[in-house]
């Protein structure tokens, strides 16, 4: 599913921006990578919602919780602050949720890297074949 989403996005990028500068296209590809991860994963995850841009709802919910004096205590300090910034939507969750989301996020992220590697390998092989024919 993740492969399908990503390849579809690549085709779309190829169609709509065939002559755009390299750096802009690579940004579009990068965005497509994260969006296909989020589409393949569960929509109930906060990281998927953060990527697909539905974070506003979460922020509103957090403000409401703060007003009700709902305190989230954590037992580990600085390394988890770093983790919060790395995982999309990490700032909005408590520590327990953060660990779960991290595990899920890392799984889809490593799969995305595998997909992209195999696409790149394939395309490089095709380019080499083309060069040999010339």
């Amino acid at each position, binding site marked *: 599913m993740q*492969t*399908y989403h990503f*390849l579809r996005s*690549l*085709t779309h*990028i*190829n169609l709509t921006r065939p002559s755009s500068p*390299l*750096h802009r*296209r*690579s*940004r579009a*590809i*990068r965005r497509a*990578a*994260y969006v296909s991860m989020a589409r393949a994963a569960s929509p109930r995850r906060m990281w998927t919602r953060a990527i697909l841009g539905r974070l506003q709802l979460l922020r509103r919910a957090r403000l409401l919780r703060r007003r009700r004096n709902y305190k*989230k*205590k*954590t*037992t*580990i300090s600085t*390394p*988890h602050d*770093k*983790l919060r910034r*790395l*995982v999309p939507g990490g700032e909005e969750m*408590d*520590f*327990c949720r953060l*660990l*779960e989301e*991290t*595990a899920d*996020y*890392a*799984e889809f*992220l*490593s799969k*995305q*890297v595998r*997909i*992209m*590697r*195999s*696409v*790149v390998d*394939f*395309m*490089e092989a*095709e*380019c080499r074949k*083309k060069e040999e024919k010339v």
Partner: protein
Amino acid sequence: MSSRRSRITEDEINELISKLQSLLPESRRRSLGRVVELQASASKLLKETCNYIKNLHREVDDLSERLSGLMDNMEMNSFEAEIVRSLLRS
């Protein structure tokens, strides 16, 4: 500093940390094997996880750039053929 106990128990943290640990690639896991004390190993595991995710982000960036350059060279026909082939393989 409030003396109220955290909502999250030590057991829950242990469980989540071992879940995370099982996700890290084998090589990183082995280097964490010797550490015994929970706080130290938890903090170390979190650092390892941060590094792992940071590396994956960097790979996505790098692969995006390479893909962008490769798409330049490919024609439309072969690009679609590549897609069909990848889909059949996965």
